């Protein structure tokens, strides 16, 4: 479970959000919506320990094991690693042959799960937008996360690629009980895949049903 109690974040004098309260259950698939600059990514960074909260509490049962899939990454055309090697960056170093074999099996299983088996040798720089997002997701899964955070990961993808990726995430949520935080500007996707959304608005956060989501919440 993730629980925020009177959580406040300021950058200097600028208040991002103030006295925010919410709960996210284990295994829940929840959308996070709100206009640009409302503080969605800042919340994620606080969760990951990359940014300090100003006051209040944010609690998580499972320490640390977060898989993070952001929209942008510094991957240019010349990026040299292939998709499998990119995933393997997230493995811990070990010389123990048993652990190495387990790691290899895990990587192969994830490649299969994410439909990347045929593409594993392709340099990531040459992969399409959708393939890249799948590779980011696959790398996050290598860390065996309990919480998966998609931060506008579907933003620049074609509709059918979006649906493919989200079907995959849905499967992970249903079959492995992965908690998913889905940050998006796409109200269709929130309605299709989630029941509940956390709406970031006016420096606070409100839990709403997905059918209450309207386009003006994103502007």
């Amino acid at each position, binding site marked *: 479970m993730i629980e925020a109690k009177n959580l406040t974040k300021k950058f200097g004098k600028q208040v991002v959000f103030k006295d925010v309260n919410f709960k996210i259950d284990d295994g829940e698939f929840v959308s996070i919506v709100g206009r640009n600059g409302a503080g969605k990514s800042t919340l994620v960074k606080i969760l990951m320990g990359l940014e300090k909260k100003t006051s209040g509490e944010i609690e998580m049962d499972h320490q640390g094991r*977060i898989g993070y899939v952001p929209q942008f990454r510094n991957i240019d055309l010349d990026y*040299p690693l292939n998709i499998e090697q*990119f995933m393997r*960056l*997230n493995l811990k170093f070990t010389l123990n042959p048993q652990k190495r074999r387990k790691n290899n099996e895990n990587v192969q299983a994830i490649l299969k799960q994410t439909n990347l088996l045929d593409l594993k040798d392709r340099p990531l720089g040459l992969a399409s937008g959708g393939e890249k997002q799948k590779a980011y997701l696959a790398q*996050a899964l290598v860390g065996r996360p309990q919480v998966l955070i998609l931060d506008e990961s579907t933003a620049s993808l074609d509709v059918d690629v979006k649906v493919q990726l989200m079907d995959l995430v849905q499967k992970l949520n249903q079959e492995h009980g992965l908690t998913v935080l889905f940050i998006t500007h796409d109200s269709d996707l929130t309605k299709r895949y989630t029941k509940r959304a956390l709406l970031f608005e006016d420096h606070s956060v409100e839990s709403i049903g997905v059918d209450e989501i309207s386009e003006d919440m994103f502007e």
Partner: protein
Amino acid sequence: MFGYEFMREAFIASTFIAITAGIVGVFVVSRNMSFLSHTLSEIGFAGASFGILIGISPLAGMILFTLISSIAVGSLSTESSRREASISAISSLFIGLGILFLSLSSESSSYATNILFGSIVGISSTEVHQLMILAIFVIVVLFICYKPLAFDSFDHIGAQASGLNTRMLSVVFLITLALSVSIGAQIVGSLLVFVLLTLPGATARYLVHSVPKLLMVSVGLSLAGVWLGLYLAFVTNWPVTFFISAFEVIAYFIGLSYKNWKLSH
């Protein structure tokens, strides 16, 4: 050529330098630090002249200057455009300082040419031992940090998300880079040490697609260049730096053409 003591010394020293530069270079390129390593080599020149001026060894002066400046860079703002501008401003200052230090010291100008352009003669066995120890230190540190450093260098955002202390890694890497610049300059000269620190690593990216293979190819190209350079310099009496740069540049363009050829097939 191994009949000569100074050639044996030069050969051993260059081998260690090439291995270090080959490894460090893979990370320099993937962390977009080619420019910084160029600047560090100019700062190293000032450090070496400073060493000569105050009567410590040029190597010690170089290490002093490059270490201080790499740590200063590490604590600079992370905004890269501003960083590049301030780095290039600082490096011009250091070139000037290097020339000033040299003109103030009583050493002959051949000393200056050695620092700038490198030299294979006149390396004593004490210096070879110093270079070896420094090189081994750099290699051991990089080996210990290998996994997290590779993660951070090839996917900074992913590394941050997985909870790695990327700040710390950056400082550790800058220290190894400063040391590599200093030891590499002893053979290739401070003017061109960045050739060894960037080109083999950059060429490898066109050829292979995993971190261990990048390291192997980069070290291989670096060793090949240095060995061939030493041999040709011995035979022709031309400067070793010329042969090493020529080899690495040619290898780079062959690598680039290979990649383009593969893309079009």
